[in-house]
C-alpha cells in the first residue's frame, strides 16, 4: 500500500527554485533514502511534508489519503502520523525543558493521555532508543546530554506517537562513527518493530546504503537518479551519482619518513572540576584527557581518532596552548607551549562558522595573524592565499555568513596557513562537509603540507578521512591513547578491541556489505 506519494513537487523561495519537480513514492513500512550534496533541496522537500518549508509549494503530496499541499489537518498529522528527526540535534531541543517533559508534552498533545501516562511513555521510548537509566535521564536538560544522546532523544520523540512515517533529516551528520552506527541501527530497529516507514536524508552515501531499500539522488532540486539502493549504489547510471561515489575518501599512499620530534606531549592530564548542583557532595572531576604521551614529528600528519567526548578537542586545544593542562608538559621545539609566542603553531577549528568573527571580513580575519607577525600591508598576501585555497581574490571583502560551509572551512585553513607555521592542529575540519567538498579540502591540505613542509595534527572521528590523509593514527578512548601506529598498520591489523569496533562502524557504500556489518554489530557490538 502506498503511504506517501509525491508528484512533481516544486518549491521556490522567491526566485530560487529549491525543489524542482520531485516525484517519489514510499510504501507503508518501507524505507527511502534521499542523497545529494549540500543545498540540493533535501531538507526543503522533507519540510514540505509537514507544511513547514516556508516557500511557495506546488505539485502533489498525498499522505495516507490526504493531500498535504492544499492544506491539511496538520494538528493530526504533525508529530502524530508524520514525525521528523531534525538535522541539528544540538539546537532542535528546547534548552529550558527537560527531555522527558518535551517528549511527554508531544505525546499528551496527540493522545490526550494523563500527565503520568505521558511521563511513563517518555521514559519508555527513551529506553527504546537505548538511553541508559531512562527514568533518571528523562529529568535531564538537553545540554546535559551528549550529541548522540540528543539525537536519540529526538528519535524517541519521533516514535513516541507511533507515527506512520518518520522523516530523518541527516540524523548523524555531526556524530562520530560509533554513535552514527548506533543511530542508524536504532532507526532500522524502530522501523522493524513499529512498522513505520522511513524517509532518510543524508549527504553520506554510506549512511543510506545500509538503512534503505530504495534511494533517490538529488541535485539542484531534481531527482537525477532513483531506484533500489543496490542498483543505484552498485551500478550508478547518472554521472553525478558516480561523482558522489568517487568522492568518498580512498586510502592514501604516502611514504612516511619521520623527522625529529617537533611537539612533545608528556603524560598530559586535563581534569575539569564539576560544579555542585543540588547535592552537597562535590562530584568527581571530568577526566577529559587522562595521561596522554605522544610526539608529533616534523613533516608528518598525525591523525587522532575517537568517538565523541573522548577528549580530542581538549587535547587539540592543549596542543596549541589554548587551555593549560592540569598536569604533564607539552613542549614545542623544546619550549613550553604556554610560553610560546608568535606564529609557529596554528589551529583550524571544528566549527568553521563560529571560528570566524561574523563582523569582520574574511580577508581581515586572515590578515590578522600576518599583521601580528609584522607584515605591513598584508592584502596582496591574503589574496594570494585565498587563491591558493581555491577562493577568488575578491572574496577578501566578504563576510563569513556570505560563504558556504566549505568555503568557510577553507578560510579557516587559509588563516592557519597564512603566517607560515610549522604545525597546524586541525580539529575535525571536514566533519560537517559533504563528500565532494570534503574531498576538495583534504586535497588542499595535502598540497599545502607538501609545499610548506608542515606538520599536521588531524583530529577526526571519520576513519575514512584519516586513512586518506594521516601517516600515523592515534586512537583515543576516554582520554587515553589505546593504540598508536602507522595508518596502514592500525587499519589492517587493529590491536585494541575498541579500534576494531570503530572500524566496524564505518559506513560503507556497498549495501550488501553494510547489512553484513550491521548483523555483525548486533551480535558482537554490545
Amino acid at each position, binding site marked *: 500500500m502506498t503511504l506517501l506519494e509525491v508528484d512533481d513537487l516544486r518549491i521556490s523561495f522567491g526566485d530560487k527554485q529549491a525543489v524542482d519537480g520531485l516525484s517519489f513514492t514510499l510504501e507503508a513500512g518501507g524505507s527511502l533514502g534521499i542523497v545529494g550534496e549540500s543545498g540540493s533541496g533535501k531538507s526543503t522537500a522533507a519540510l514540505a511534508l509537514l507544511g513547514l518549508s516556508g516557500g511557495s509549494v506546488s505539485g502533489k503530496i498525498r499522505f495516507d489519503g490526504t493531500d498535504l499541499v492544499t492544506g491539511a489537518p496538520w494538528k493530526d498529522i504533525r508529530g502524530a502520523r508524520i514525525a521528523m528527526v531534525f538535522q541539528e540535534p544540538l539546537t532542535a531541543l528546547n534548552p529550558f525543558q527537560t527531555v522527558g517533559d518535551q517528549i511527554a508534552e508531544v505525546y499528551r498533545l496527540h493522545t490526550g493521555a494523563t500527565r503520568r501516562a505521558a511521563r511513563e511513555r517518555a521514559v519508555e521510548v527513551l529506553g527504546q532508543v537505548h538511553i541508559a537509566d531512562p527514568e533518571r535521564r528523562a529529568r535531564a536538560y538537553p545540554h546535559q546530554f551528549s550529541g548522540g544522546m540528543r539525537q536519540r532523544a529526538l528519535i524517541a520523540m519521533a516514535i513516541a506517537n507511533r507515527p506512520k512515517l518518520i522523516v530523518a533529516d541527516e540524523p548523524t551528520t555531526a556524530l562520530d562513527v560509533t554513535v552514527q552506527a548506533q543511530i542508524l541501527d536504532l532507526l532500522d530497529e524502530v522501523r522493524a518493530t513499529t512498522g513505520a516507514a522511513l524517509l532518510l536524508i543524508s549527504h553520506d552515501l554510506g549512511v543510506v546504503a545500509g538503512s534503505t531499500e530504495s534511494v533517490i539522488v538529488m541535485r539542484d532540486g531534481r531527482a537525477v537518479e532513483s531506484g533500489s539502493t543496490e542498483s543505484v549504489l552498485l551500478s550508478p547510471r547518472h554521472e553525478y551519482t558516480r561523482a558522489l561515489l568517487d568522492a568518498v575518501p580512498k586510502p592514501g599512499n604516502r611514504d612516511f619518513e619521520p623527522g625529529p620530534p617537533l611537539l612533545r606531549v608528556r603524560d598530559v592530564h586535563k581534569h575539569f572540576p564539576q560544579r555542585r548542583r543540588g547535592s552537597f557532595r562535590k562530584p568527581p572531576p571530568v577526566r577529559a584527557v587522562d595521561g596522554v604521551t605522544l610526539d608529533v614529528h616534523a613533516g608528518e600528519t598525525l591523525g587522532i581518532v575517537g568517538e565523541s567526548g573522548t577528549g580530542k578537542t581538549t587535547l587539540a586545544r592543549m596542543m596549541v596552548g589554548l587551555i593549560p593542562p592540569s598536569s604533564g608538559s607539552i613542549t614545542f621545539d623544546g619550549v613550553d607551549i604556554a610560553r610560546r609566542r608568535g606564529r609557529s603553531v*596554528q*589551529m583550524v577549528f571544528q566549527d568553521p562558522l563560529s571560528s570566524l*568573527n*561574523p*563582523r569582520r571580513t574574511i580577508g581581515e580575519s586572515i590578515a590578522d595573524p600576518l599583521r601580528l607577525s609584522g607584515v605591513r600591508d598584508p592584502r596582496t598576501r591574503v589574496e594570494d592565499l585565498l587563491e591558493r585555497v581555491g577562493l577568488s581574490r575578491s572574496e577578501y571583502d566578504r563576510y563569513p555568513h556570505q560563504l558556504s560551509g566549505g568555503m568557510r572551512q577553507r578560510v579557516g585553513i587559509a588563516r592557519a596557513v597564512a603566517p607560515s607555521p610549522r604545525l597546524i592542529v586541525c580539529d575535525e575540519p571536514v566533519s560537517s562537509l559533504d563528500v565532494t567538498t570534503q574531498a576538495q579540502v583534504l586535497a588542499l591540505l595535502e598540497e599545502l603540507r607538501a609545499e610548506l613542509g608542515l606538520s599536521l595534527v588531524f583530529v577526526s572521528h571519520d576513519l575514512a578521512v584519516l586513512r586518506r590523509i594521516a601517516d600515523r593514527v592515534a586512537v583515543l578512548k576516554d582520554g587515553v591513547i589505546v593504540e598508536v601506529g602507522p595508518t596502514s598498520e592500525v587499519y589492517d591489523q587493529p590491536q585494541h578491541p575498541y579500534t576494531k569496533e570503530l572500524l566496524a562502524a564505518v559506513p560503507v557504500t556497498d549495501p550488501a556489505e553494510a547489512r553484513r556489518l550491521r548483523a555483525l554489530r548486533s551480535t558482537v557490538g554490545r
Partner: protein
Amino acid sequence: MGAVIATGMVLVAVTAPLLAALAGQDYTTYHDTLLDSARGGVPIGAFGGVSGEHWLGVEPGTGRDLFARVVYGARVSLGVAVGATILEVLLGVGVGIAAGLGGRWADAGLSRVIDLVLSIPSLVLAISLLAIVPQDWPRPLILAVVIALLGWGGTARISRGETLSLRTRDYVAAAQVAGAPWWRVARREILPGLTAPILTYAALLLPTNMVAEAGLSFLGVGVRPPTPSWGQMLSTATTWFRADPAYVIIPGLLLFLTLLSFVLVANGLRRVLDPRQREILR
C-alpha cells in the same frame, strides 16, 4: 530619516548664533512688554506670543525669545548628553570588557565596582560633586563628566555579559592562538560584537542624560543662567502647563524628535556595522 533629523539637530546646535542672528534675536534680552504680569507673566498673544519677530513666541516670566533659546539650548542639551553618553560608553565598555576578559578575581572586583556605581543615588552624588567643583570650570563639560561618572554602570554590565559570551567563541580562541595580546583581542574580536547592544543602549542613554542635565540644572547645579537648555525649559514647564502650553510642547517635541532620530540612527548604524544584516535589537 533618523539621520536627517539628527544631523539637523546637530546643525542647529552648531549654527545656533547664526540662526539666532537670522531671527534677529538673542537669548538674553528680556521683553517685559510682551508679558501679562498680572497673570503670572504669561506671554500675551496666541500660542505663547508667536509673532513675526518671535518665531516660536517668548519665554513666560522673562519674555526672552524662545527661538533663540531653543537653538542655543540645543547646544547645551546635545553637547552634555552626547558628551556624557560617549564618556559612559567608553568607560562602561572598557570596564565591561576588562571584567569579562579578565580572570575570576578581576571580574569579581570590577563587577563589585559596577555594583557600587549602580547603587549610588546619582542625584545625591551629582549635587555634592557639582557643589565642590570650582565655579569657573567649564560647566557643560563638568556636567557631562559627572553624569557619565555616575551613569556608566549599565553599559559596563551589558558589555561584561556580552564579553563573557563572546569570549567562548572560537574566533577569539583563533586570535589567541595567533598570539594576539589581550587588548588586541578586545579591540579586534570582542568590540565589534559589542556594537549592536551598546548602540541600542546608548540611543536610550542619550535622552536619559538629557533629562539628567535638566534635573541638575533645575536643582541649580547645572548650567548657569542665562545659558538655556531644553532640559531646563522642560523642568520649569510644569508651572506653565496650562497657562502657556507652547512652552511645554516645543522643548518636549524637540526632545522626542531628538530621541527618535538617535534611535533611528543607532538602528541604521547597527545595520551598517552588522554584516549579517541581522536584527538583534531594533
